[in-house]
């Protein structure tokens, strides 16, 4: 087995005149789905950008498979809060962006892109432009795009935050299914407690100014999780305990 997919030690980061993160240390194991919970403006996106290699170096060490992150890597994929689809490309072309669009894609990649659109529940959307997709459909295309890239480490920055409650729950199920098809290390940022408990193997609570890891809890719910999981006493117990912790931080 190769080195740990992601390990942070003593990571800190400041924008000019504003310290956002201080002394973060944690690791994400292979096949582990870790949710990062925290209030808005707390530095969660900054953390993901750092891990993705989109921000210049910070204090401390960020290692992906044992190597320091300096720039975006082939084996790391990110999904943003906005779907960030190119409006001038069809859904299929957007999925194929990591392969250089249709023109640059091999026959195998083209086939895989079509299979992925089917897997995210959009078998007929290949030729549609983003303006013809709803918010939920657009996020599914974004998921398919990241899966075409087939990274070993998934970074998801509140991918469902812009959706209504019903679509959010549906998308959480879609995401779980795709992840279960090939479980890999994932760092999933959210500010929704139920979403974190529903999806994660482990929950990190990031809070404070500058933000630190305040809690690191395991979620021992069996997989696959289903809509009924939300009625599980353990689910509710955890969600409630997290809620209390949040109230303590806020006070």
């Amino acid at each position, binding site marked *: 087995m190769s080195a740990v997919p992601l390990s942070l030690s003593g990571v800190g980061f400041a924008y000019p005149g504003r310290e956002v993160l201080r002394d973060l240390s944690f690791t994400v194991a292979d096949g582990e789905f870790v949710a990062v919970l925290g209030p808005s403006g707390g530095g969660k996106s900054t953390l993901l950008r750092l891990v993705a290699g*989109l921000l210049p170096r910070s204090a401390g060490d960020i290692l992906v498979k044992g190597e320091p992150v300096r720039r*975006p890597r082939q084996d790391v994929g990110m999904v943003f809060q906005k779907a960030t689809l190119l409006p001038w490309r069809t859904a299929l072309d957007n999925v194929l*962006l990591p392969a250089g669009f249709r023109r640059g894609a091999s026959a195998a990649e083209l086939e895989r892109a079509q299979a992925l659109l089917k897997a995210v529940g959009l078998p007929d959307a290949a030729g549609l432009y983003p*303006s013809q997709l709803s918010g*939920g459909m657009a996020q599914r295309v974004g998921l398919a795009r990241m899966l075409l890239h087939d990274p070993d480490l998934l970074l998801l920055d509140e991918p469902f935050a812009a*959706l209504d409650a019903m*679509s959010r729950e549906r998308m959480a199920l879609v995401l779980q299914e795709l992840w279960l098809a090939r479980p890999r290390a994932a760092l999933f940022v959210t500010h929704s407690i139920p979403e974190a408990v529903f999806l994660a193997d482990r929950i990190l609570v990031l809070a404070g100014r500058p933000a630190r890891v305040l809690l690191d809890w395991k979620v021992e719910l069996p997989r696959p999780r289903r809509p009924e999981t939300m009625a599980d006493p353990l689910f509710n117990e955890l969600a409630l305990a997290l809620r209390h912790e949040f109230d303590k931080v806020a006070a």
Partner: protein
Amino acid sequence: MKRALALLPPLLTLALILGIWAAFTGPTGLPSYLLPSPSLVGAALWSGLVTEGTDWPHLAFTLTATLVGYVIGSIGAVLVGALVAESRLFERFVYPYIIAIQAMPKVALAPLILVWFGFGLASKVVLVALICFFPLLVNTITGIRGADREMIEMARSFSRSGWFVFVHVKLPAAAPAIMAGLQIGIVLALIGAVVGEFVSSDRGVGYVIGSATVNMNVAVMFAGVLELAAAGMAGSTLVRWLHRRIVFWEGRPSHPSAES
């Protein structure tokens, strides 16, 4: 049928204007050396474009200067704009001057350009290129700068090269602004060509209008103006059509509805 009906109101306006015009220029109206009657202008157009055909070489000259200058100026503007938008160094050393030159009326340079580039086609082409260069340059720069940051980070996060990000993210993101600059440019280009011909030329519609002024042949002046108006309208209609075709995604919301 519907389209024909849509043409009716503007045609009525035209008929009204021609009617008023004819009334003012009748036997008891204004003398024809101040305002020629519509029929005199019509006769000038008819002989210039049909029976004698003497206007065609002039139109061809003006349109050649306009189009060649427009193409050169526009390509240059997009290239320089891309450089300025993408390079910090270029921005720091060159951008302030671009802003300064942008504020200056370029037609004031027409006499100088004629001295430098002669009285033929070349000087008109240079003037046209210079005039349509700056608005498009500024639009290109702001368009590229305005590309969505998350869109750029997305492409970078998939390990795409800087060139890929430029060609497939920034440039298309700037396309609406570039097309808007091209629309401004086509109108300015025609103005540039005509101004160049006014200042000094022995050909072109601007020259025809200029020499008709000397002879007080106002009907010929009107005919020239109408020819330029038609050329300008044709040009901007064509560019507007291209704009809609190329930037087909513009003005559409990226997500019309929130549910999945």
